[in-house]
């Protein structure tokens, strides 16, 4: 049942990605200062925005889990955070490439957005050992939800604190505020953002579908008294 609508969603995602990439390479003007390397902006920034929103969405799913007691929401929360962590790795890598090309260093401590993203990423990286350390599945789901809620509240707070710390010593020279973008760049950026959001949603849906299918197979095997190969991941929640 999780597979419903997966095909049109995937097709829409591929089409949107193709559209946004062609806009990036053939439509958006070259940046006057940074030249071609600036195009990584259309990959890096949407990835970062989607990952951060995904973290907060994971927190919202966790609230739904605690309020309703339905384990389905815990699986949603887990998959949302999982996907956002993967996106987060891509954000850090693309960010490092961009930083090397335009500032000359792989990592720049003066740039508040970089530092706050790293802290948020490290925070969510502890989600896995945290889940893994709790054995009882029901308690694991509850604790993971509490973690997701606390971490979701932490994301905006962290960005504020880091930004304030840096503005003391370093003016924000590389502001990526969208207000300063020319119309062509803005359009391309929005298309890329939509494509990344679609990609995230599709991947989340794929993983939920896969989890639900493997759960069903396991239940069927058990019902048939067939051997259940490999008990699967011990941290990932099962979907019914």
């Amino acid at each position, binding site marked *: 049942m999780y597979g419903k609508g997966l095909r049109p969603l995937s097709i829409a995602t591929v089409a949107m990605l193709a559209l946004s990439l062609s806009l990036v390479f053939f439509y958006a003007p070259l940046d006057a200062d940074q030249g071609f390397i600036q195009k990584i902006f259309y990959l890096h920034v949407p990835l970062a925005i989607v990952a951060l929103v995904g973290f907060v969405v994971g927190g919202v799913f966790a609230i739904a889990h605690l309020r309703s007691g339905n384990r389905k929401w815990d699986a949603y929360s887990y998959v949302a955070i999982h996907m956002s962590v993967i996106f987060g790795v891509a954000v850090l890598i693309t960010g490092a490439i961009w930083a090397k090309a335009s500032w000359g260093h792989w990592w720049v401590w003066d740039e508040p957005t970089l530092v706050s993203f790293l802290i948020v990423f490290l925070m969510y990286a*502890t989600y896995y050992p945290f889940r893994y350390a709790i054995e009882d599945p029901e*308690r694991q789901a509850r*604790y993971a939800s509490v973690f997701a809620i*606390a971490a979701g509240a932490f994301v905006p707070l962290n960005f504020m604190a880091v930004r304030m710390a840096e503005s003391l010593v370093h003016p924000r020279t590389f502001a990526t505020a969208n207000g300063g973008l020319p119309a062509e760049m803005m359009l391309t950026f929005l298309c890329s953002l939509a494509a990344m959001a679609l990609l995230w949603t599709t991947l989340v849906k794929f993983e939920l579908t896969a989890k639900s299918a493997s759960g069903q197979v396991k239940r069927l095997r058990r019902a048939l008294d067939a051997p259940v190969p490999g008990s699967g991941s011990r941290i990932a929640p099962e979907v019914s």
Partner: protein
Amino acid sequence: MTGRADTRGAVSVTPSRVAFAAILAKDLRSELRTLQSLPAMALFAVTTFVVFRFGLDRTSLSGSLASGVLWATLLFAAVLGINRLFVAEREEGGFDAIRLAPIDRSVLFAAKAAALLVYLLALEAIAVPIFALFFLDSAAGLGPLLAVLLLADLGLAATGTLISSMAVNSRARDLLVPLVLLPLVVPLMIAATGATEPLLAAGGPAYDRFGTWLAVLGLYDLIFGLVGYAVFDFLLED
């Protein structure tokens, strides 16, 4: 702390204030008798100062170095106490007793956070004067530092209680507190060191953006106080 049956046989709930005072008094009394956490925290802090003295090869500190050494030490010493905060509850069946008692469960969060706050203040009452004695040229910045310490302790108490109560019920409990707590308190440390740095500056205390940093600390305390209070119920269910 047991609920009293009134004339109609209904059980009345113990007022939260009474339950809070009882749990807090129990914690402080058992800490006073066993001395499990505080001496270790204080000793750890003092030893860490000595390590920093040789690690940095400085005999006096000021500005950002002073505030960094002070806060890193206090944070790691706090982790020791936070690790042990719920150990008695788990080992002696205190969680079951709290679940059985006719009290609002969030009271346990408030009381434990208050107990942790007392530990942290006691730790700082020992560690900060020793820090000043070891490294500082003048003690002029210590007065306003009290406000920073108090606000940062409130935030540490809220997040520490929340994480500790989860970690103690897991397999890897001693591992989990530092792992999860440290990234969570990074904003707190940014604000605390930001406020402390000008206070301990070489030329006497300054107050660059002191109020702003205190406001950030207050906001952090408020948010994590509310989050902890709201979600703590779910951690006690079983």
